[in-house]
């Protein structure tokens, strides 16, 4: 029996999306192979990007082994972000959690000004997440887009409830959208179709929602794997966007991560590595040691 190595070649290409501008520009996606399948026919021009998340207010959850690497910087988002730049990140993710009506309900203007100040201080490109409250985000995210016009930020979450107003502001002010839908491939495609009626698909990144190990990771894993395969293998235009896995916060919310440092790092690390292997192009983490651990483990 003759063995012929079962190499595969696909027809689809994940779109290459650029975030940030000038020296800070960062390319994402662009591959026509599945994750780490360097043995198949095709290329991976941009490896998955590693990002650390900072919050725009001091975290209410004080897990010591999570906050320890940042010291006093956690009380100042800009210092926190600059500290993260020292940990080998490709970008910084700022979450405007203080604008959440269930938190401080902080006004849009102040949040937008913080993003602008942070931009001026950072050497790496910036990803901005609103609180996830679709109504409040419809005020906050357009404001951020306007105040930082032309900076090519990656901004989200754009949801089916607010995609028109947030997507329009992203388009008008030269940014990239994070299209978020709740763990369902049909909802995900539907939102992309709606968004791409006015936003070029090169300006869209998919956030399928990332669940933590033990708390639904199998849904995120299989969904990301499917989205990637439908894009790369069957060349479905509406799934050929890069994928962002915003998983750090989900992991550090778990009892298991809070309870012990080793367990916490592995909880975040295994979630991240699984979603990397499923096909995520951007991994948003909370702990710098997790980031180093994954890079070392993959060894590339």
């Amino acid at each position: 029996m003759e063995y012929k190595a079962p190499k595969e070649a696909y027809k689809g290409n994940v779109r290459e999306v650029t975030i940030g501008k000038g020296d800070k520009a960062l390319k994402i996606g662009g591959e026509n192979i599945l994750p780490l399948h360097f043995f198949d026919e095709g290329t991976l021009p941009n490896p998955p990007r590693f990002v650390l998340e900072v919050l725009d207010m001091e975290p209410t959850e004080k897990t010591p082994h999570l906050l320890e690497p940042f010291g006093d910087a956690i009380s100042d988002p800009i210092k926190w972000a600059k500290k993260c730049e020292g940990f080998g990140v490709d970008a910084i993710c700022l979450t405007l959690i203080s604008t959440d009506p269930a938190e401080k309900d902080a006004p849009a203007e102040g949040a937008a000004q913080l993003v602008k100040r942070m931009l001026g201080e950072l050497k790496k490109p910036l990803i901005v997440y609103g609180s996830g409250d679709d109504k409040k985000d419809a005020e906050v995210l357009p404001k951020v887009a306007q105040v930082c016009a032309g900076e090519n930020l990656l901004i989200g979450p754009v949801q089916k409830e607010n995609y028109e107003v947030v997507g329009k502001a992203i388009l008008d002010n030269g940014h990239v959208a994070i299209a978020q839908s709740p763990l369902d491939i049909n909802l995900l495609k539907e939102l992309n179709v709606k968004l791409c009626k006015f936003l070029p698909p090169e300006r869209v990144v998919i956030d399928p929602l990332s669940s933590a190990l033990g708390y639904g990771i199998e849904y995120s894993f299989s969904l990301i794997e499917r989205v990637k395969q439908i894009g790369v293998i069957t060349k479905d235009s509406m799934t050929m966007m890069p994928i962002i896995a915003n998983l750090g916060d989900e992991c550090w919310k778990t009892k298991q991560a809070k309870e012990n440092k080793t367990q916490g790092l592995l909880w975040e690390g295994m979630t991240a590595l699984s979603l990397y292997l499923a096909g995520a192009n951007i991994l948003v983490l909370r702990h710098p040691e997790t980031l180093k651990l994954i890079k070392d483990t993959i060894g590339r």
Partner: protein
Amino acid sequence: MPISGSEIVKMLPGRKPCKDCGFPTCFAFAMKLATGGATVDKCPYLSPEVKAKLEDLLAPAIKLVTIGTGDNKVQVGNEEVIYRHEKTYVHPPGIAILISDKESDAKVDEKIKKVKELQFPWVGLTLKAELLALHYESGDKNKFLALVNKASASNLGMILISQDLDTLFAARDLCADKKPLLYPITKENIDQAIPKIKEKPTPVGVRGASIEELIPLTMKLKEVGVDDAILDPGSKNLIDAIRDQTFIRRAALKQGFRPLGYPTIAFPCFMAKDGLKEALTASAFINKFAALIVLSDFDQYTLLPLLVQRLNIYTDPRFPMAVEEKYYEIGTPDENAPVLITSNWALTYFIVSSAIEATKVPSYLCVKDAEGLGVLTGWAAGKFTGDQVGAMVKKSGIENKVKNKKIVIPGRVARIKGELEDALPGWEVVIGPREAAGIGAFLPDYVKTLKK
């Protein structure tokens, strides 16, 4: 590459309805064969050659291999898909701890104890590692045999690792009835090993420096009737391992290439120096097809995440995981404790119970069987209505546990309040937070209202 019924029927004798197989026609029998609903021996008219050929064609693309015996046996293989979302993965990888005969007695005892005793309750299941991988390194054969005897007494499944064949088979002779995996069989030792393997058949681990090197080895074993094999393509690092594991899985399933139709073994213990990296490497192998994973060591904090990941990746995506319908005690609730209710999708239960636990308010959590759906979808599907929730609460016996007849329902199904109050006379229904994340803010204040 499963064979179809229409291909099978060409190989059947095609006698006018003899019905000796129990089916009306050869075609009906062929269709049953193709889907695993019948076995080849039901047809008495097949020549031995055709019978053997059919049996081979109908065998699973990846051989099912069993290591160990009794309650502690580990079964791997029989996988039908490359990607989990195509159907489901079937047999979760066995996790082994590596024990060298150079390690101290105390260390050996500790490691055996870890595999036996590190067990974790998780959504109604018990998670644990299952195998001991015994490594001959000391150069002192008797020392290794003593280790094998000690490990054998634990009744756990074993992997025997020895470059020296005499020692390997001497160890096997001590525990052949426990069906250990013998490792490694290589191109250098296979000819000497085959007669010994045949004396007392147990599964064997075949090692090659590449996939190509494995192929003649498994073919040779198969020729002499040894078919319980596990493959080690000798991957040096994680990137190579993903290539090798993917090629083996594809060759078996997509090409129907029998010489690679066996489960695989991975050795994070030899690939990573640091404990955390080793655990992460192992986690990549859970996603990437390994059937046996050998770790140098673990503790509760490195093992639990791996076991949870294995559980998650090997759950069947076609069926939601569900927990049993009953009331659960969180902490040690007394007669003044709050009562809450949610649905029985494992994830819902897990998130809600974790949120309650985090408040440190001892509580009762009632779980209503909504056929594995979440609360809102369960309600929409007619599985979480006020009547049904009421009936569940009555049946559960929670009434005898608390003085306050008050029950907290998820805010998302606030609309069942009236119906539930009708179904539960004497109870007050309280509308709780919409999301589990809101329980932290809700429960501590709510419980104060109960103590009055």
